[in-house]
């Protein structure tokens, strides 16, 4: 358990920038998630922390000690790989004991700590099995026990759940989170799955094209995304193209004039709207109203999503709670969509 600091850490492959100056402070016991689409540099960042990728610049410190160019086997990080990477010829027990053997601990201590780690992941009864005799979820837990057994300064999770099916994924991620809290482990997890990221993280880092776009809590990212990319990546949203014609006034490409938050943006911009902040029919306190035709309805169980065309160029998604008493609008119906100016955010036009 230790603090982790990344100071302007970067990686270039020739002209290709994989990570452009990542600066991060992860406090002791914090669960930080690196979130982003594939190729955004999150895995490279994690591998630089583990020591598998040599940085092109910047520094990494674990517990205040510079590890930037330290070999992986001299760092005390515990990594869980996407493919689990268990040693196929060793039993579960031997897998978990491996890191302790490398640390040249006494035999009795190795056995004790390996058993303890297996108990943490509830696999005490599987010590003598070979990895191939276990299910995917069990293998994943062995990989976790193996990383925990060495009592790492930092736990590194590289898309640890992406090979599990949906139901199991949910279980294992809650289990990982509980263990992490219980042990007070500083943890960095990499994922491209926003739901996964939002459930487990203390803090999230959104990356795109090798850059850190935003660092913050779930609420920060959702309520105050710093740019269009983050807004689109975290949560559902509709984007309307257009321009800011006056502070607090937005004109869409389809000619609708809408009220929005007064941001310091002039000229070409996009208006982002969260589907659940829009409503159908009249309600109080709405700054914007527009009529349109329902073009598509997704029935998602707890909620319904209506895709409503407000003008030839503008279509918004409206999310409604699925109330049994209300008849939901159907495709082709004309509806009035309304929202408060704070339901949306305006971003300057930018790449993606």
């Amino acid at each position: 358990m230790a603090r982790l600091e990344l100071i302007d850490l970067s990686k270039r492959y020739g002209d290709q920038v994989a990570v452009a100056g990542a600066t991060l402070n992860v406090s002791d016991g914090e669960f930080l998630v690196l979130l982003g689409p594939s190729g955004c540099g999150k895995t490279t960042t994690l591998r630089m922390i583990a020591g598998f990728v040599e940085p092109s610049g910047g520094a990494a410190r674990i517990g205040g000690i510079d590890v930037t160019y330290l070999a992986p086997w001299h760092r005390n990080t515990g990594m869980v790989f996407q493919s689990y990477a268990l040693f196929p010829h060793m039993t579960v027990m031997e897998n978990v004991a491996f890191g302790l053997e490398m640390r040249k601990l006494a035999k009795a201590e190795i056995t004790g700590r390996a058993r303890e780690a297996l108990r943490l992941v509830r696999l005490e009864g599987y010590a003598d099995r070979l990895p191939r005799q276990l299910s995917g979820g069990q293998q994943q837990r062995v990989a976790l026990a193996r990383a925990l057994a060495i009592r790492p300064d930092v736990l590194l999770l590289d898309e640890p759940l992406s090979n599990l099916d949906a139901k199991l994924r949910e279980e294992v991620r809650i289990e990982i989170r509980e263990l992490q809290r219980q042990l007070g482990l500083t943890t960095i997890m990499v994922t491209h799955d926003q739901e996964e990221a939002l459930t487990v993280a203390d803090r999230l880092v959104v990356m795109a094209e090798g850059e850190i776009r935003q660092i913050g809590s779930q609420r920060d990212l959702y309520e105050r995304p710093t740019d269009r990319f983050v807004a689109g990546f975290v949560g559902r949203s509709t984007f309307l193209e257009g321009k800011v014609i006056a502070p607090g006034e937005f004109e869409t490409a389809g000619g609708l004039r809408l009220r929005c938050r007064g941001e310091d943006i002039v000229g070409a911009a996009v208006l982002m709207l969260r589907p659940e902040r829009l409503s159908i029919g009249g309600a109080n306190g709405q700054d914007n109203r527009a009529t349109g035709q329902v073009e598509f309805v997704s029935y998602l169980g707890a909620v319904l999503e209506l895709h409503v065309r407000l003008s030839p160029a503008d279509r918004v998604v409206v999310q409604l709670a699925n109330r049994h008493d209300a008849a939901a609008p159907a495709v082709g119906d004309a509806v009035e969509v309304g929202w408060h100016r704070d339901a949306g955010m305006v971003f300057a036009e930018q790449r993606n």
Partner: protein
Amino acid sequence: MAGVTLGFILLPLVLVTWLAFFRQEIPSFPPEGYSLQWFGAVLNNKSFVGGFLLSFQTGIAATLIGLALAVPASLAIARRTFRGRGFASALLLMPIVVPGVVLGTSIYVFQIEAEIATGLPLLGTTTGLIAAHALIVIPWATRLVTASLSGFDPAIEEAAKNLGATPWTTFWRVTLPAIRPGIVAGALFGFVTSFGNLEMSLFLVGAGRTTLPIAILQYLEWKIDPTVAAVSVIQIALIAVTMIVTDRYVKISQVV
């Protein structure tokens, strides 16, 4: 169809085995009776026993040398990307693609030239023979070790390093055991190829020192009797036993 193929493969083996137990000296059907005398004849034949020992010795030594060269080569081919990787990979298969006579001739010429240049005895020595046999072990070993590496997740080695193992420890404790089936299969095939090699060895053995296949050929030049069948049966049995024993520890069928 499978039965026909199996019959096609097994028929000569069955016939030679049957023949080895015939009582009469001139092989003819039907047999006049059965006897074990030809196996005794094999054991009393100095050139068969000496040939067997030389072939065995050469096969073991060539296999060890071949593996020591093939394992690092396979690691490089499977793991690294470098210019000419495809070429290197193809080149390592050459010794079993080139006809044995051609290979034998070129090694013969090479060894003569090397002897002239260095003054060290090479041609006709066991060392020279072993070096040549190592050459025909390499393709098998490389092929099979590379195959087992291709199914081996490189993240497993990273996991070992992450847990504190140096690259050397990682190789001994993790990589080598994981590719063991490929190594064992490569060793087995390499040994069998070396043990049965005739064409290349013909050029390289010294006077009075022959390998088993050459001893059989020389015997056949003088007479045909069930002794030859008996010596073949001994070889078949040895190889079969080796394969069965090996298969108990390593599932060869998973690699080849």
